């Protein structure tokens, strides 16, 4: 065992990379849940984004186009969820589960010919002087552009929810859809927009795994990150900046765990690999006492009688 081989600067830099898929997926789901909809299909939308982004990037040679395709694919899958829950009045838990099961199957089918292929690399940010600074350089200025996009999305979502009229309407729909409907807001339309946004974000998160984090395509490669993202929204008490905090915490656990595996700690690999999931449970337990911040209409379907 050799812990000195772990470089703290690289550790923090790779922690940020490990956290970014979670960031994307969780901030998308946060918006969905703010509108009062519980979409358990995050895992399915992520993996569809992962395969669609990967395939597009390989075929076109452009990772950027890959991300665009991934967002499109995630949103397209979420349309199914929107139809089921908003028009067909189906149970949200069941619909979300079906989205995940369907997404996992479809992604395996789509990705068959891409197993073992190497995707095109995304250019890392390289600002003269800044990126070359010791410590600060690799942590703050040496990443791929999508990592900054994820943080920007968090900032935008926070600002929109807190300061704009759109955010107010979104929250109103999520807190009390009957009152929002009575005020003349289009509850179903607003929720569909939120679901689509969540799908696009989950797709981006998935593509970040297959194009940057790993980068490779394997079946079922999201390995529960979509579910951790759902837990993260609870952890964040539906507050955008806390999603960032939580994602970096989980990213940290993942990276430290991987580093310990590499360093050959006396704990068996399997038990280290369990740790992110166990810590998720632990965090859920600690935070589940306070449910007051959850949107009041979360998970309830809306049907206007007339």
């Amino acid at each position, binding site marked *: 065992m050799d812990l000195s081989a772990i470089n703290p600067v690289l550790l923090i830099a790779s922690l940020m990379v490990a956290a970014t898929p979670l960031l994307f997926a969780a901030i998308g789901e946060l918006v969905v849940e703010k509108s009062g909809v519980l979409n358990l299909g995050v895992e399915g939308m992520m993996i569809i984004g992962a395969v669609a982004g990967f395939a597009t990037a390989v075929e076109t040679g452009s990772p950027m186009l890959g991300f665009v395709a991934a967002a499109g694919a995630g949103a397209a899958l979420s349309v199914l969820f929107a139809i089921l829950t908003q028009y067909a*009045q*189906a149970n949200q838990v069941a619909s979300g589960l079906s989205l995940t099961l*369907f997404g996992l199957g479809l992604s395996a*089918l789509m990705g068959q010919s891409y197993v073992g292929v190497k995707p095109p690399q995304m250019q890392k940010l390289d600002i003269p002087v800044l990126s070359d600074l010791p410590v600060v350089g690799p942590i703050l200025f040496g990443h791929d552009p999508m990592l900054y996009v994820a943080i920007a999305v968090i900032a935008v979502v926070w600002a929109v929810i807190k300061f704009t009229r759109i955010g107010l309407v979104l929250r109103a729909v999520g807190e009390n859809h009957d009152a929002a409907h009575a005020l003349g807001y289009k509850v179903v339309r607003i929720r569909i927009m939120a679901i689509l946004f969540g799908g696009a974000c989950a797709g981006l998160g998935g593509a970040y795994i297959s194009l940057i984090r790993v980068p490779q395509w394997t079946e079922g490669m999201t390995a529960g990150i979509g579910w951790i993202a759902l837990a993260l929204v609870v952890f964040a008490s539906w507050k955008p900046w806390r999603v960032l905090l939580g994602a970096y915490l989980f990213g940290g656990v993942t990276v430290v765990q991987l580093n310990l595996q590499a360093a050959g700690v006396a704990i068996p690999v399997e038990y280290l690999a369990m740790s992110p999931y*166990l810590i*998720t449970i632990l965090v859920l337990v600690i935070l589940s006492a306070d449910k007051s911040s959850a949107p009041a209409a979360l998970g309830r379907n809306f049907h206007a009688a007339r």
Partner: protein
Amino acid sequence: MIRLEKRPQPSRAWSLATPLVAVLATMVAGGMLFALLGKDPVEAIRTIFWEPLFGEFAFYYRPQLLVKGAPLVLIAIGLSLGFKAGIWNIGAEGQYIIGALVGAGIGLAFYPLEAWYVFPLMVIGGAFGGWLWAMIPAYLKTRFGTNEILVSLMLVYVAEQFLASMSLGLLRNPEGHGFPGSRNFNSYDSATSWINESAGMHWGVVAALIAVIFAYVLLNRHMTGYHIRLTGEAPRAAKFAGVNPARLVLFCLGTSGMLAGLAGLFEVAGPSGQVSIDFNVGYGFTAIIVAFLGRLHPVGILLAGGLMALTYIGGDIAQSNLQLPSAAIQVFQGMLLFFLLAFDLLTNFRISLGKPEVA
């Protein structure tokens, strides 16, 4: 203009018809999918649904229906109890793994002793393992109000890692030349779950049938079953009627965990034969589809389990005969749940054409 009107009572006719309509719609959509993959859609659907039952080699495939259907029915029966009451155990896959590990562990501890009590002890161990694993989300939910969906799912990943550790370590066959995986139960007479292998009969099939009867009686003739249904349909009324929600959570999660654990034990001691890293094939997740497809009704689940087993077997045949990718069947099963949920609309709502009346 198309409008939806809520029915005063859910339509019984549609409630029975939607699974059939959903299966038909899935066949059509699945056929289109297969056509996109460059396969003859009619041939593919025929291979999946007809070949295992009435084809040339049906004598071989029919017993497989029991082998694949039993764990699905067993798990789905347990899940349906919780789903009825709004308690979502989606970690059956994890309970299945842990049940199998505990049961197999007991069996392996007795090896090579031949005695009548080895298998019953394994069965008890399997049930206990699954129950214990399900008690984690149940306890956390009742004690701290933690979301059981997320906890039970996270525990699937934990269980998978645990399985890997066990099949590479503690439970590994000491005479296996270093290969991962335990001893094979099929060559250990006291511990095998087979009753008649060529007929596809193993104790899991028996247990599945008992579970169906048990669930039917519970839901229709017993107070606990009534409480489950009441909680699902009117949680507030249930509270006023004195239903103890914590006890219901413990009961539903515990029972479903126990049944999933049993399914795992019967599988590992029979069809799979040994504990290996990937002996679990996702029955715990497919059982969710089975539970919904069977309308959360015991008899419906029995039929749905048979149908889902058929798609597994038919999928295997289509894979070897038509080179249909195995993932295509997974998509097919996912679609089934989609269509079911969508058509379920007709059970609770009436579609009316024409202008809405002004109130």
